[in-house]
């Protein structure tokens, strides 16, 4: 009996170092963030005082935060919308049988493997009116074309969303493709025998069978969009003005550039709460799908 009791706590001793590291690197910072959100902490001014919920009230009066929230909603909605539409389309293409399919499935992941900062810096140049490859390509068809993508609000936002799609869409498509592999070919055969065309097969067979898979993928991908930071940081610095500033970018600027640690912590807590609610809702939706 004593042998059994001894063996019960041995695993806990083995994982204790990892648990302690995890507590220190994750739980402790999260706790401190919640705590700091109730303080006004401005490192450059030497201010560190308890202010209660004042930071949370100030958030709704801050034009920069409102601008960040606005673009975050736009960014998440449009990025996810096109992720789903184009992702399914790309997955269908990659699921077809043709020569070089395996090669295509490999190279299509190259953008996903590239660091976001590199993509952002390259995109800053790519969308430049004088030296960018985007305008260079357009000028081969319209020689007099001149447009500075990153100085206008709508086109700068479009550019940011486009680069986000370019980077992550292939990975999303590959994951949908993996779900398609579980659909038996015989179902398509039976449908073809019954007279169904390609579009009907897609709508009546493929789409229903991958819907749950797509819905499940949407949870992490939406959360990643909500916490996206590096593309904006390296590509537009939130500009023009604050029009392409995402909420994660705003938090980083407040915390590490402006050194308003308390206010940044407050924004981080609010983002955390939004993400938690969103995750909960999505899990409920996914469960309903599986029923």
């Amino acid at each position, binding site marked *: 009996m004593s042998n059994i009791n001894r063996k019960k706590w041995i695993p806990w001793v083995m994982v204790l170092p990892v648990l302690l590291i995890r507590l220190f690197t994750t739980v402790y910072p999260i706790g401190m963030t919640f705590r700091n959100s109730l303080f006004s902490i401005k490192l450059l001014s*030497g201010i560190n005082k308890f202010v209660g919920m004042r930071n949370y009230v100030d958030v709704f009066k801050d034009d920069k935060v409102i601008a960040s929230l606005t673009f975050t909603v736009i960014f998440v909605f449009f990025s996810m919308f096109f992720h789903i539409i184009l992702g399914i389309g790309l997955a269908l293409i990659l699921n077809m049988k043709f020569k070089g399919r395996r090669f295509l499935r490999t190279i299509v992941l190259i953008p996903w493997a590239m660091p976001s900062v590199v993509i952002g810096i390259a995109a800053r140049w790519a969308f430049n009116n004088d030296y960018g490859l985007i305008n260079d390509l357009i000028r081969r068809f319209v020689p007099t074309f001149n447009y500075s993508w990153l100085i206008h609000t709508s086109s700068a936002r479009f550019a940011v969303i486009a680069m986000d799609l370019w980077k992550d869409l292939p990975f999303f498509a590959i994951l949908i493709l993996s779900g398609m592999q579980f659909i038996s070919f015989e179902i398509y055969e039976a449908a073809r025998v019954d007279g169904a065309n390609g579009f009907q097969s897609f709508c009546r067979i493929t789409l229903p069978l991958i819907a749950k898979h797509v819905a499940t993928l949407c949870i992490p991908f939406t959360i990643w969009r909500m916490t996206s930071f590096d593309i904006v940081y390296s590509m537009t610095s939130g500009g023009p003005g604050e029009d392409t500033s995402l909420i994660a970018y705003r938090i980083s600027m407040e915390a590490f550039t402006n050194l308003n640690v308390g206010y940044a912590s407050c924004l981080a807590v609010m983002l955390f709460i939004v993400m938690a609610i969103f995750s909960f809702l999505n899990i409920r939706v996914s469960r309903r799908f599986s029923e």
Partner: protein
Amino acid sequence: MKKLLGSMLVAGMALSMFTGMTAYADDYDLTFYCIDTTDPDFDTWLQTVEEGTGLKINVVAAPTDSDTRQQKVTTILSTGDTSVDVLFVNDEMISSFKNTGWLEPIQDTVLTEDIRGEYAQGYIEHMVTSVDGDIVALPSYTGYLAFWVNQKFLDEAGIEEIVTKEDFEKYLAAVSKDGKYGYGGSWEKTYVFNEIGSFVNMFGGDYFDWTNPGNKEAMQFLHDMAANGYTPLDQLADKYEQMTPKCTDETYGSWFMWGIGGDYKAAGMLSPDQIHMQMIPDLDGDGNRTIYTDSWSYVLNKASENKEAAIKFMQFMTTEEGMKANFECFDRMPPRKDLLDNIVPDGHDAKEMYARFANECYVTGRPMVPQAMEFITDMGTLFQSMIKDEVTVDEMCEKAQELVVKYTE
């Protein structure tokens, strides 16, 4: 057997970690956080400094992006991180940090009384001295935000030199055509602050007083330049990396820029017949000219555990040998006026112009506040809104004054 192998592996990894850290600590006398590591002559500079000081220096490369640079330095200093001893920082960072107590005073060890007078006094007093009277940074060079012109454009406009507002307007109108612009800049929201200030100065304004009519006149001038097509709106997205090629491929006829033209020289464009500095225009006609000076400076981390070595390094940077290395490797003019003639050869373009700036202009540091980057970004964003006609010039001046009050109270 598996357990034994596993235990040996873990022990080996742990041992190698600690061994590595100890070996690292013994190898170097100090760690220097530096922005120049990507310069082709950096290794030469480092070798010179190590030979001159007898120190082994570990160099940490600074990020090239301005926001990231600020964030990394702030994190190191505010957390009392001992891994970096000497940091190379700009005016924005010094303005933010000089009163925080994170920097070691150097007036008794490095920038001592016998040499202090040879540095630009206005810069030392306003930029690198704390409210307690401590000098916390050592300037590494003297830089001016000079006015540059392309001589070909001047010849085309039939103008010898841009002096008055009328000269400038005539010049802009004459040369801004066929994809060329009489003036170009870097109007990204964290960069345009330099030009806003320069134009405010040229019109006799005051950056900290936006009720001054000179400020409004300056902003109206910039707005009209953009509206008339004399300067492109594209530059709202441009930092210096995007702006410099436009200068060397002759898209711009004039601009403000730091440095002595290393990039233009590398492009084979630096000469009296091509790209060169000229005296700051006197757009308000009162005969006074103001020019911004800046420097990147060496600061000593108060948490440093290698202060002796760090002070030795910084003392070397006050000597002729140290400044000569900076001049020859990075094209930086020496900050000590008593050593200028020893280091910079006669006939050097920048020497004559720099002497003129020092004698004919009111030399001042850029207007900085403790929340420097926040202030700079907010002003830049406001300026961009004005240029895009989202707010009027009057509204911009009003909001700018609110920002000044907010960040200087």
